């Protein structure tokens, strides 16, 4: 037989044999799986971000179908996805609101001092471990981008030496919250627009020595916020369970650390 015929028969034969083997395996060796798992996996966004606490969307789908997990743990999917899955499985969907991450610090390099010149790994935990970090304020954002590097959707940029989350892109997976060595990043409702962008627990004079825009603990905002802002020592903290709409809090803050988010289409500034 000439080489071409031999080759064709060989390769074709191997192909047919493999197909037959696969068919047999599919019939006799397949692992039974609840078909709903596949459907739920398709309904999930497929970002595999791990924000739900499971190892990827397929793993979360398995947990939902087997009843180990609620339908509303997927932040990227949001309420629409949670309701769709609940409807598909015939369950009641718990309420869910969109959340976003926010960096509670506005002391960038135009306002906050650096107390040393840092030379080392461009990583916030590494900087923190070196003489306590190079920022004058020991609570403020170091700006070396560890949060941005773990963000699966690139929602964090470093602007003037501090991190800023783009509200529109954030999927609230929580990876940045874990990455920040100073625990500055919090997950807050996306609907909330007024925030106290400071985490310094120092007294007013100490804050002013190292940052021009820190919270000095004057309490003016607590009086204007109708219970939505409370004091934690010398730091004003927003209680996101209560509504906060009084823009006077922004205007009257002497440190200018209470800011209102820019309108939805632009990143928060």
């Amino acid at each position, binding site marked *: 037989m000439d080489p071409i015929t031999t080759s064709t028969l060989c390769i074709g034969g191997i192909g047919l044999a493999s197909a037959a083997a696969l068919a047999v395996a599919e019939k006799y060796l397949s692992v039974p799986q609840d078909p709903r798992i596949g459907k739920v996996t398709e309904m999930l966004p497929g970002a595999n971000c791990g924000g739900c606490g499971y190892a990827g969307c397929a793993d979360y789908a398995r947990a939902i179908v087997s009843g180990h997990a609620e339908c509303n743990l997927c932040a990227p999917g949001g309420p629409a996805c949670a309701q769709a899955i609940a409807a598909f499985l015939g369950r009641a969907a718990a309420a869910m609101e969109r959340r976003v991450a926010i960096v509670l610090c506005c002391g960038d390099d135009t306002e906050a001092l650096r107390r040393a010149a840092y030379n*080392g790994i461009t990583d916030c935990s*590494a900087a923190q471990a070196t003489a*306590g*970090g190079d920022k004058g304020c020991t609570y403020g954002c170091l700006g070396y981008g560890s949060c941005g590097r773990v963000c699966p959707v690139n929602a964090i940029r470093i602007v003037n030496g501090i991190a800023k989350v783009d509200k529109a892109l954030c999927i609230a997976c929580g990876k940045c919250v874990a990455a920040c060595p100073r625990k500055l990043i919090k997950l807050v409702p996306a609907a909330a627009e007024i925030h106290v962008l400071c985490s310094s627990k120092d007294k007013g004079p100490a804050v002013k020595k190292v940052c021009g825009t820190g919270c000095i603990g004057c309490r003016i905002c607590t009086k204007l916020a109708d219970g939505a802002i409370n004091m934690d020592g010398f730091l004003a903290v927003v209680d996101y369970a209560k509504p906060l709409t009084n823009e006077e809090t922004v205007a009257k803050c002497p440190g200018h650390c209470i800011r209102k988010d820019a309108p939805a289409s632009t990143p928060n500034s």
Partner: protein
Amino acid sequence: MATIPSPHTFRGGIHPAYNKALAAAAPIRELPLPARLTVPMSQHLGAPAKPVVKVGDTVAGGQLIAEAAGFISAPVHAPAAGKVVALEETLTASGRTCAAVVIETAPEQVWQPLPTFPEWRFTDAKQLIDHIGAAGVVGMGGAGFPTRVKLSPPSDKPIDTVILNGAECEPYLTSDHRMMLEHAAEIRIGAEIIRHILGARSLRIAIEDNKPDAIAAMEKAFQDTDGDVAVTVLRTSYPQGSEKQQIFSVTGREVPRGGLPMDVGCVVENVSTAFAVFDAVVNGRPLVRRVITVTGDAITQPANLLAPCGTLYSDLVAACGGMAGQAAKVISGGPMMGFAVSSLAVPTGKTASGLLLLSPKKISDFSSQACIACGRCVDACPMRLSPAELSQCIEADDIDGAEPLALMDCIECGSCAFVCPARRPLVHHMRRGKTVVMARRAAAKKTP
């Protein structure tokens, strides 16, 4: 009593420029008592001490101002008489903050000694150990491990060799060197006390061969000491002063991985710690001051200052004629393992033996270059690790890949980064990796 060259030396190590001539000839000078002392509560390894004084209290020199908080901890005593004016947080050399007792020193000094044990040879070891603990003696070679704990090994770990660490392998530092020259007799008594407590058979005084005058001084001091005593001359190599490496150089024994010197029957104590033991047992003095070498090319008059704990670095610098030109880096300790500090408002403690001020000429920045696999770090590592591979794993956040490469065995001596042509921050990577591993282990302990 004999002087023997060390029979072994550890593999690896580096030979940095030592620059000890700057301060080696300066006799120990007592710092005039500062007006204010900020005495840290954390001058040792373990839990910070708990203050037992309040603002407004008058204290005598040597009086207990903070008690040990647990087994691995040590008490703190007032370095001088005065009034407690504040209990506040202070910056420490490592960058963390800790509580401190601030004392305004009195012009008239009053001293409150502890009990003494002149007949220590006939005193029960347990009594001596408790006394040493009550005197706040901790390891003065840098780690600050409470000496009381080190001198109480469990009964299934008998100690046969006490090694006195006079290596002082860090460049620039000379405080141990001067102690050996000027207080050899007291160090000898301290060493004998330690040997007596542990019931050890052998005593070795380990000194590097770049200090011939110290070797001679210690030879003379230990001349008529009974028992198996010898001065072991070590080949000068950094880090010869590292416990594990020194035990190997002196005895040929390797401390097992994850183990302690007592696992191979040895205890290593710094010569200054031996002096502190003598001071506590014979003179009833708690550990409240130490010799610090203030040196570098950015200090006017390098010196070996005997300073009370709680002296601010700014006071030390002033006592040495101030800075000479601009200091680019101020380091607490030696250049290989010391901490770079961000300000001079840091108080001294029992452990840091040096303050190094370096000008911009002596600084070498780390870079973010990739590893070129030259293998110099592998040759230099005294623990025989592979820093090249470890740092590449950690840089890529592959901690699972780094741990089996013996990441946790790294002693952070800095030999690898010293030789790296790509100027990689290798020790920084190691520390980062170790922090992640320890956090994971702690988290694993919490979840069942």
